[in-house]
């Protein structure tokens, strides 16, 4: 090393050793390249003061802790980490043009995939899993229900609690309604009830009890679970908005399918075409989210007005 002073040499060696250790997960040549560059940098920086401990310390401080420096390089840089080298899959990317993402999903990430009015693309790679996700926010903009700048920092963070509860209440009522229908019709059902419709014709049958549990049990228990764990525990508005929109649309699909099953068992034909139910699933999800978003924006404007005019200290208007 450049310093004749053994203490300077020791400080530099120690630094480079730590840097090397922090670069173990990138290919050797690339790690060496980084280290060589830093050696030259240290030499250049201490050219006129190569024996001074203070000067070397200052230079190393300017580069930063070796671990942190290595981390920054890895985050910004062109390096292929060793795991990529061994053809391990990265947590996200594309295979044959099909996007995938198995990075840790968070509710916020998933929500932003489903709802981002400012991004005009309706189909985008999924936040988790393989394939594309629908950006319902962009759809709302395309249908001129929202403007692209109608966006909250965290989606749905201003939706009034009451609106969220009403969304949840609707699916509870819907499920109760279908349970009542099930009780009324249960005894009249034949021994075999259709539980699956290929595309219009039934192709799977089950006993009335199984069919009822399948079509009503799943949405009802999902409703109860979401009510208990998301609404009663007052999870974030984002969580409640997504839960309410999901369970409402899912209940419409399942309950509609159950009504179809009964109707077919009794009348030999369908009441509602299954494709219409699938369409309803998406439509209701979309309408619910759009409604929440509009109510949230209204609330935000109202809050800003209240804060601005009346009470600059009140942040929360419940």
């Amino acid at each position: 090393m450049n310093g004749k002073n053994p203490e300077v040499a020791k400080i530099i060696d120690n630094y480079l050793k730590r840097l090397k250790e922090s670069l173990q997960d990138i290919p050797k040549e690339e790690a060496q390249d980084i280290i060589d560059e830093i050696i030259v940098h240290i030499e250049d920086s201490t050219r006129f003061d190569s024996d001074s401990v203070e000067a070397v310390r200052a230079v190393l401080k300017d580069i930063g802790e070796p671990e942190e420096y290595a981390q920054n390089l890895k985050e910004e840089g062109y390096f292929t980490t060793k795991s990529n080298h061994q053809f391990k899959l990265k947590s996200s990317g594309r295979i044959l043009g099909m996007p995938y993402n198995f990075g840790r999903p968070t509710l916020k990430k998933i929500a932003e995939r489903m709802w981002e009015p400012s991004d005009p693309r309706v189909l985008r790679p999924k936040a988790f899993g393989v394939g594309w996700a629908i950006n319902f926010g962009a759809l709302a903009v395309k249908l001129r229900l929202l403007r692209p700048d109608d966006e909250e920092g965290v989606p749905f963070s201003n939706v009034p609690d009451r609106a969220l509860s009403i969304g949840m209440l609707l699916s509870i009522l819907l499920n109760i309604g279908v349970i009542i229908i099930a009780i009324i019709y249960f005894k009249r059902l034949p021994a075999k009830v259709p539980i699956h419709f290929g595309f219009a014709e039934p192709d799977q049958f089950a006993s009335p009890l199984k069919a009822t549990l399948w079509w009503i049990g799943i949405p009802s228990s999902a409703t109860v679970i979401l009510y208990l764990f998301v609404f009663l525990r007052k999870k974030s508005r984002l969580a409640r908005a997504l839960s309410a929109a999901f369970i409402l649309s899912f209940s419409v699909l399942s309950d509609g399918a159950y009504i179809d099953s009964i109707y077919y068992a009794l009348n030999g034909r369908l009441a509602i075409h299954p494709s219409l139910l699938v369409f309803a699933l998406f439509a209701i999800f979309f309408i619910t989210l759009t409604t929440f978003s509009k109510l949230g924006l209204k609330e935000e404007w109202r809050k800003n007005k209240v804060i601005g005019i009346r009470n600059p200290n009140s942040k929360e208007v419940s």
Partner: protein
Amino acid sequence: MNVEKESWTSQIKKGVLELAILALLKEREMYGFEIVSSLHNRPGLSISAGTVYPLLSRLKKAMLIDSAWRESPVGPPRKYYTLTAKGVSELAEMTNTWLSISNNLQSLLKGGFLE
């Protein structure tokens, strides 16, 4: 508030520094230490070596610059950075964007928004 302000400053700097580095390299090829000290001589653009090298790495990843080890007139061999063709055109675009932002922002800050 202070933390907020600091992060704002570093965010701004990061974006601007990419442009500054590309502009430096448009003049001539440079090695890391030269870039750090050139920026150091310009108040407002001064930045630590610990930030410059990762930035260079990022620019290289974006294929705006390229690098090669070469003997230098004085001292040891050094890793020289040069602007690529893509870097040249990107620099022109970034310069336009920057000028437009800075002109508009300046008139805004001078009170143009009151008109």
